[in-house]
């Protein structure tokens, strides 16, 4: 049995980080780097204790990596869990160096077995789960599913002074290009990939989108290389991250960079003429067939 720390810089997944850290069998202490409201939300999400480092207006959480690392290292936990965000990782990297910990991306599950810490982690874009173990401390970036808040109790919050923040300043924040694009709010998105042969054939896909009341999306090459659809509509790692109720990928291979943009979708459907296309490994439903036959058939079936 061993206690563990979690590093919190945003409200997302706090309960899941806590649950993962609970795997070590002991208490969970959260360090929150951000505004008071984030500390309050964290306290309600399940950890036993919250240490709060207040950030000043123009400093990003990364500026507090030094003080956070010193605080956690002084407690010498066997495990630290952070989100895989840019901010979470930078804080965790400093903590790892201070602790002399191994760093494990893709963490899903932690456990303590005697003097060993065992971590299950997603590898190869989630195609495989690897079990790794060590007798030393570990720092992992959580890659599992979200979880519901544990119980209803509220942890105590202790503010921790951090006056030696690094010289990092946020100079400007503005909405990214396409942040207000309709695709971001749409309940249904029909997205098209390089399976489409000609720009004019977009009409076929629009026909389906119309009966569904859906917005049109696309894969990166359709916007970037071909220029058939506006850039603000491409979905993926470097494009839009969307969370529609239904996402229909038409003639899209299902590359990991593309699928990263629809992690929040409730139901994903793939339409592809290659039965081995990657999309069928991550979608919920699929139709194997030529989009030029399947899309009109789907439109007809929806009209019934």
């Amino acid at each position: 049995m061993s206690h563990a720390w979690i590093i919190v810089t945003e409200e997302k997944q706090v309960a899941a980080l806590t649950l993962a850290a609970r795997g070590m069998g002991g208490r969970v202490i959260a360090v929150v780097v951000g505004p008071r409201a984030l500390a309050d939300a964290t306290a309600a999400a399940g950890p036993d204790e919250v240490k709060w480092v207040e950030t000043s207006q123009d400093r990003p959480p990364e500026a507090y990596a030094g003080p956070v690392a010193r605080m956690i290292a002084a407690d010498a936990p066997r495990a630290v869990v952070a989100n895989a965000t840019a901010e979470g990782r930078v804080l965790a990297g400093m903590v790892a160096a201070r602790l002399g910990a191994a760093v494990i991306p893709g963490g899903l599950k932690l456990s303590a077995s005697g003097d060993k810490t065992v971590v299950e982690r997603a590898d190869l874009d989630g195609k495989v789960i690897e079990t790794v173990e060590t007798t030393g401390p570990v720092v992992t970036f959580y890659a599992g599913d979200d979880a519901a808040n544990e119980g209803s109790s509220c942890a105590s919050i202790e503010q921790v002074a951090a006056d030696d923040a690094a010289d990092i300043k946020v100079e400007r924040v503005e909405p990214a290009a396409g942040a207000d694009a309709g695709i971001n709010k749409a309940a249904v998105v029909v997205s098209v990939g390089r399976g489409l042969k000609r720009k004019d054939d977009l009409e076929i896909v629009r026909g389906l989108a119309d009966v569904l009341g859906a917005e049109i999306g696309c894969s990166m090459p359709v916007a970037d290389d071909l220029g058939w659809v506006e850039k603000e509509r491409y979905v993926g790692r470097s494009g839009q991250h969307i969370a529609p109720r239904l996402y229909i990928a038409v003639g899209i291979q299902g590359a990991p960079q593309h699928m990263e943009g629809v992690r929040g979708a409730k139901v994903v459907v793939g339409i592809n003429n290659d039965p081995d296309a990657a999309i069928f490994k991550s979608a919920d439903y699929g139709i194997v067939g030529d989009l030029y036959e399947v899309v009109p058939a789907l439109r007809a079936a929806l009209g019934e």
Partner: protein
Amino acid sequence: MKTVIVYKWARNAEDAAVRSDGSVDWRNAKMTAGEDDFAALEAAKAIAGDDDLVGLTIGDGDASWALARGVLQAVSVTDAPHLTDNASTAAIIAAAVRQIEGVDVVVIGDSEEYAGVPVALAGLLGWPAVAHVGSAAVSDGRVRIIRKQGRNEQTISIAAPVVIAVSAASPEKNIPGMKEQLAARKRPITKLTLAAVGAGCDDRLSSTATKLPETTAARVFAGDPAAAAAQLVAALRGEGVL
């Protein structure tokens, strides 16, 4: 600012096949540079300006990758093994960075696969870091980076020394041709060993098993398009998403 661009030359994880028993088959994997490395190099060039830009790679791969892209000198720690622990990999890179005199900025690809390497590197150097960077420049003696954060774009400025981890937005577009490859062969590569940089090579992690994830495969309909479409519509109505 004197800048080091860290790049890797390794098996392409996209080519790895996972067998039905959960073991991984690397036989068809081709060697490739990190997906984000070319974007990191662009940022590194912008930061270095007229000052020195040094390439740094570890492992027995092709160190000329950066030299073919306009970098004039490179350092390679040739006997660095592949390690599961990202902090151990970072420790080798950190030791090599310390061998290069007067470094202001280390720029490195923010690879998803090795998401711990850049941040552990910053930790080991004791330098501040920013990750998921899109582009970078220098003005008023500070490094200014732009990155996407959720639906926002942030401009952040940082005093050197600093580690900048860059994420590519797309695949590399201007791949060097024959002429650049040939020029690269004439440029110097300093070959170092783990012993020379004073780095260890133990992996603190041992891998005990690999298995397939418990994802439920897609329900796939095939055959007559009209019938398949009708089945899909029924299923989606059942899910309540139509």
